[in-house]
């Protein structure tokens, strides 16, 4: 089994109003539950907005600490799953459900398998 990172690309700015957000959160939780039931779920997390981020960078002898996300952009990762899947097609099937639930683009990336070498 390989592991895949499914990340949700969320546009910066205010979240949608509760009447929009609540059904989305319910759908996301349903996908989450389905992943757990299928044994595909490894980990999941939702993130605070990118302006809560702090970036640290080793710089010469010291470490530079700066406010804000590392990459300037109009969208940032808003949440993610780590799932277990036999192959990319299976991972894409979960990502299909994930993007349908959160109504945002979902990126699928294979994780390096330590046993692969």
């Amino acid at each position, binding site marked *: 089994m390989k592991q895949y990172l499914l990340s949700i690309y969320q546009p910066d700015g205010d979240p949608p109003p509760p009447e929009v957000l609540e059904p989305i959160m319910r759908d996301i939780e349903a996908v989450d539950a389905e992943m757990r039931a299928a044994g595909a779920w490894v980990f999941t997390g939702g993130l605070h907005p990118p302006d809560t981020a702090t970036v640290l960078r080793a710089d010469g002898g010291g470490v530079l600490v700066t406010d804000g996300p590392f990459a300037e952009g109009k969208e940032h990762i808003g949440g993610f799953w780590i799932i277990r899947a036999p*192959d990319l097609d299976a991972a894409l099937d979960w990502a299909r459900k994930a993007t349908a639930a959160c109504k945002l683009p979902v990126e*699928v990336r294979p994780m390096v398998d330590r046993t*692969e070498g």
Partner: protein
Amino acid sequence: MQAAGRGPADGRQDRGLTLPGPAPGPALGDIERVFRAEYGRAVAVLTRVFGDIDTAEDAVQDAFAEAARRWPSAGLPPSPAGWIITTARNRAIDRLRREAARDAKQGQAALLHEQDDSAEEGPVRDDRLRLIFTCCHPALGTAARVALTLRLLGGLTTAEIAHAFLVPEPTMAQRLVRAKAKIRDAGIPYRVPAEADLPARLSGVLAVVYLIFNEGYTASSGDQLARADLCAEAIRLGRLLARLMPDEPEVLGLLALMLLTESRRAARTSPDGALVLLADQDRSRWDRALIAEGRALVRQCLRRGQPGPYQIQAAINAVHSDAPLAAATDWEQILRLYDQLLVVAPSPVVALNRAVAVAELDGPAAALALVDDLDSSNLDRYYLFHAIRADLLRRLGRRAEADAAYDTAITQTGNAAERAHLALAKQQLSQPDGVAEGERQERGDRGPGIVDPESPGSSPSDDEGRRRA
């Protein structure tokens, strides 16, 4: 970390088939023939056995190098394909053992994956099908799908593919290495998709084959009107798919479409290399055998009553093939087929081609009204949109507008023969008989692009496939 999983095959130049020493006579041609016919099959089997494309390619190339040394003196073995597969498998095992001994994890993994499979000729057909679905996986970019399909199933060398698509060889080599790395690292499966996913996945495969054909038919840039080798390769892949999936009407439809289009190749170019439009072609130069084969396929697949875009386009081409003279073309039937095509595969390109049929039935004014109604945002960079407008304007005697439309069309095609043809048409506008010339009801054999639901502008992925480095 990414580099850690890579085997020695990455970055290695592929060798294609290099024959050592002086030409040993007729066997050389035999070996090349076997190579062309069996390369894809051998790579497909070995990929299944070892679970790794690079391992499979290296082994098959080793086996062909061995064949080139042996066969000229020993003669062809009774089953050349079986010999290649067995030899490749033994070579792969030798190589993997050496790598495993050096603690290369990939060698160990591939050896572990190696399956005992003595019936090498049995499931072979499925292996090629598996391989083509892997090569055309939607997670790969269009350009990568095309390159992988030509490389792994067609056995073309990286240099040949680079040459055909006018990109530098290192660019193409890198494209192939990246695509193979993605297949391995992302875990793109090596299997025929499940029934539920098959229609969508199959249409992706057919799009790749048709893209190869289109590129060969009307090279999107360069001096040659057509690159016959790409057409031949696309037809070979089309025949393979038709053998492997005889119950899929769109597979037969695509093959029919390619055969009927190909049947006009000789008539499409004048001795001096200029483009000859469908209406002006010497129909005695059409290839009757290809037409007969294409027409039989059209009948065969339409009987199933599941019309799809390729079948309908093939049917349109069959109607053209029916007409002994351009003037005898059954435009009403063609218009009906375009109406049907607009239902199953609506796109501005199809609507544009439908307008060409309308021009023949209801005159250029009616057609121009349709063309000008199309959303030009998708078509503005499509040279045929401007070429067809120019032609309609010319036939209506609106010379200044026709002239401008020809200019735009000329800037939008990179194909020299097409440019020359458009320049000639533009030049004829200013001649005294320019309008009279227009009354000849010139119609274009615009190539498959004209009836291609996936033509430029209709989908971003197609643009990627056509992008040139």
